[in-house]
């Protein structure tokens, strides 16, 4: 029982962080149609920026977070303006490759600046263990779940209630119609990339708190793909569910089956889902016209 609870908490924590990263990915895809392979790198950039703000500049962590958010927004907007705008109208494979190229470049830049040694993030999430129902649970996981839930809630509220959020949903639904309603699609694209970069940064910081600041943060970002397939790209709720499922699945497999299977089980699940429901568990069917 204790094992089960520990695995569940750990899985929920990883899953919540994944959901956070996946939300950014989904925002970009829905609003601009771009498959952003650099989401993991955005996470790593965010983590490293917070690390360097705390460790090298000596700033307190709220300031560090703001700094990292600013850098993330700059990277996101820069990507949209200089790399993706020239790619409008190109085939899907070209857009995928351009984001892959960006991912490599960002990772290389981080490696150049910080080296490859894993670094310890100054823990601004309280460490230590709590006893709940007699089971020792790590504090930082619980706090991570809470923080991720908070941010996801904020993003959801943004989409539901704010003007810009509704405008973004309009663009995601039908670009032409949104343009005719006077929505500036260009601004929406920039906003989408900005929000995605910030959520990625937050996800990256949470991951780095748990496992240290290194290139592995970007690898964690690869799991975004099974999450968006499971959860579909059409709703925040779906993404959250998808993230939690993937996080829990990995931990349960590691805990009860082991043998490296946990690395590949999300992808096996993915293939099954795609065979049955090509647009994901919660996705909407796309209608294609010639």
């Amino acid at each position, binding site marked *: 029982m204790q094992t089960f609870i520990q695995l569940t908490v750990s899985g929920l924590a990883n899953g919540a962080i994944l959901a956070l990263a996946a939300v950014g990915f989904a925002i970009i*895809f829905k609003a601009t149609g771009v*498959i952003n392979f650099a989401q993991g790198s955005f996470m790593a950039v965010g983590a490293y920026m917070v690390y360097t703000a705390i460790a090298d500049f000596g700033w307190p962590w709220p300031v560090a977070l703001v700094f990292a958010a600013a850098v993330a927004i700059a990277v996101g907007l820069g990507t949209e303006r200089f*790399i993706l705008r*020239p*790619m409008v109208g*190109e*085939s*899907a*494979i*070209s857009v*995928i*490759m*351009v984001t*892959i*190229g*960006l*991912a*490599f*470049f*960002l*990772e*290389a*830049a981080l*490696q*150049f600046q910080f080296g490859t040694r894993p670094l310890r993030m100054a823990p601004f999430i309280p460490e230590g263990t709590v006893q709940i129902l007699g089971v020792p649970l790590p504090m930082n996981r619980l706090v991570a779940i809470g923080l991720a839930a908070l941010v996801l809630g904020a993003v959801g509220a943004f989409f539901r209630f704010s003007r810009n959020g509704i405008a973004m949903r309009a663009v995601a639904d039908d670009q032409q119609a949104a343009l005719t309603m006077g929505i500036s699609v260009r601004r929406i694209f920039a906003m989408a990339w900005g929000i995605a970069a910030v959520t990625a940064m937050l996800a990256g910081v949470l991951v780095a708190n748990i496992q240290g600041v290194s290139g592995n943060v970007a690898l964690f970002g690869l799991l975004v*793909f*099974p999450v*968006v*397939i499971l959860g579909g790209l059409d709703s925040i709720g779906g993404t959250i569910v998808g993230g939690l499922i993937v996080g829990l699945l990995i931990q349960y497999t590691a805990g009860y089956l082991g*043998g*490296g*299977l946990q*690395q*590949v089980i999300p*992808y*096996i699940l*993915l*293939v099954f889902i*795609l*065979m049955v429901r*090509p*647009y994901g568990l919660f996705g909407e069917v796309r209608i*294609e016209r*010639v």
Partner: protein
Amino acid sequence: MTTTGVYHTNYRSELRLRHTRAEQVRLWMAVVLVLLLPFVLSPFWLSVANRIGIAIIGAIGLNILTGFTGQISLGQGGFLAVGAYTSGLLVVRLGLPTLVAILLAVAFTAMVGALFGIPALRLKGLYLAIATLASQFIIIYLVRNWEFITQGRDSISVPRPELFGFVLIGDFRWYWPIMGSAVLATILGRNLFRSGIGRALMAVRDQDIAASALGVNLTKYKVMSFAISSGFVGLAGALTGHYRIITWERFGLNVSIEYLAMIIVGGLGSILGSILGAIFIVLLPSGLEQFAISVRGVFPQVTAQLPALQLATFGIVIILFLIFEPRGLARMWQRTKDYFRLWPFRY
């Protein structure tokens, strides 16, 4: 001569591989270059040339699938692994002669490709990319952990094959079968797209729904595309398996991305593009390394940070090519030819 176009007056001349004098001359120059290279290159560059040869075969395969048929595939590394392990295991466990093992590996990889092609029928774009990504991870997992394949060992070392009585040890001897296979692959690829099958594949890429309305059987041609492409890739994998020790690290996600980079930088939908892209991408890290060595005295940081620089250059090259010349090196070559052909006019 060709400024006003190439006109044929009979079928024979139209069916020739090279239409104009200039094209034929360049072809012969290329042939001479390929024949002379192993005699003038140092051993290090010869091994690079061998790697380029294998990469050409794989790149042509991937281009058939992605460039000509429009099916995104991130699972290249996995299929290379299938080809390598099949061929290696057939030789090591069943003792089959190398040539037979390679042919069987090609056929088996094609079958596996067709198998993966079936679920791909319903997927497009993002979903197809993610599904092929999944296939990449699943194949590598199997190859690393399935007892039947690994038998507890971490790598498979295939005994050196023999060809016409020569044992293939050393880059010089390997050059000939590798380049021969690359030439064969090029001719096959080129001819594929002069045939009806090739035209059907391109129709699938351009407008698959309209193509099916015109009578192109989507299922048949998509699966065929996966099969043919995987066959080429299986050949590249099988050659790798015999040329070097088989370890799973040769077939990871980064290899898949490298191959995609080759066809993007080279030019989607072009056999020449596959060749140019393969040469460019394989030379990039080695070239950077030589550059780092030569500037070591002045800029030691370059060597110290070489892996980061190689990665960064790889990323930047892809981005720049896609922004400024999305149709790749093949298009740049075409433009160069046109420039000389039409000079002093601009078009």
